[in-house]
């Protein structure tokens, strides 16, 4: 019997490291977004995607909740909320 040890290439895409996220996660309000893409550029995980205004969203499978996107958004359209508390602002 063997455990998960020897890994073929690109297998790590399957490892959802979002489980490392601790307390906070970003909530993309998608209200005043101007599609400046600052959040996309600053995300260390590269897990924010979007095209037109108000379409930007993070991928919770990988998001670590570091809060850089919320800090950099010029329209304050991203807020950090507590894990499991949908709709509540910090």
């Amino acid at each position: 019997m063997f455990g998960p040890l020897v890994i073929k290439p690109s297998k790590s895409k399957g490892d959802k490291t979002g489980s490392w996220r601790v307390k906070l996660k970003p909530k993309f309000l998608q209200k005043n977004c101007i599609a400046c893409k600052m959040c996309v550029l600053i995300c260390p995980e590269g897990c924010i995607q979007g095209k037109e205004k108000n379409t930007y969203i993070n991928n919770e499978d990988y998001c670590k909740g570091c809060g850089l996107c919320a800090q950099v958004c010029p329209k304050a359209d991203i807020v950090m909320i507590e894990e499991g508390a949908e709709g509540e602002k910090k």
Partner: protein
Amino acid sequence: MKEFLEGSRAVAEIIKLCKPGVISAYPITPQTHIVEELAQMVADGELNAQFVNVESEHSAASVVLGAVATGVRVFTATSSQGLFYMGEVLYNISGLRLPLVMTCANRAVSSPINIWNDQQDSVSLRDSGWIQLYAENIQEAVDLHLVGYRLSEDKSIMLPVMVCMDGFILTHGMETVDIPQQEEVDKFLPGYQPLYKLDPAQPLTMGLLADPDYYLETRFAIQETFKDVLKMIPKINEEFKNHFGRDYKDGLVEEYFTRDAEKVIVAMGSVCGTIKEVVDAQRAKGKKVGLLKIISYRPFPYTRVYDVLKDVPRVAVLDKAVSPGAYAPLAIEVKATFFGKKKSPKVVSSFVAGLGGRDITLESVKEIFGKLTQKEVSSEFIDLKPELLKEEYGQ
């Protein structure tokens, strides 16, 4: 072919016949002759292997880990402090499920520094995920290396094997040994066929981070595989008998006059030879004594030990190692064998002897049989010198 050989030389001969591609080792008494012989064979062109000189055992183990990961059979050897120096790599090798055979020339551990034989070194690594097989004599040491490669490289096992032979006693002792022919070895042990290997043509990663979502299963898998090892060892020994004629039965334990015994000593390694002498002498006088030799310490053959000892009234376990603050390492396994079972010996007494190479004589063994009374003793040291003990430092 039978030759009168030094133990280390005999091991080198069998390793040569197993055709490793890479050998890396750092010298440490009493393993030195093994690797010196192998280095000589490589230098003389007798063995087509790469001998990698390194500055430490940690590097030696790392070299063989890397080499076997690329799909080539490897070998290394060490003792005592060297075993500990490569300690973290050993857990890596078993964790990575890579096959390897390593000789541990059992030696006492520092401090104080002691180069003579006891089993503290390998026993201290009992949780490393390595299969541990203990040799009574040089012939067994030779045969266990050959069995070791077969066992280790089996695609359902893929776990490293530590062949433990008592330092000086077996490494520097001399015996008539039957070293097999290359053709017969090749039939028993084909070339290493890796399940997975590092290869730029087919890239893969070994030794990744495994977070809490993944790690548990790797340890469960090793635990389950050790159950398979218990079944595989007898199979391989059956094949070994057919190829080479020597019958180690199940290869897990050896029963010596245990069937109707009233007192049995359980032990591992070369001391079993001494115990057999005492058993023979006492049986000649009509005393019903016996020996249960443990060959496979990891995995521990609980079922076999239970079968052999369940009707024996008194059992003595002779340890050549200690687990300070707890039951001795072999004694605890023997005791655990009977817990919750219907039958068990009335007494399982634990004795410690031979640490730091203090000779276990025929008298020492007789003393153990003598001290195996209805009163159970725990970690009783044999041949202790009380005059060397001080209550306070400087007294």
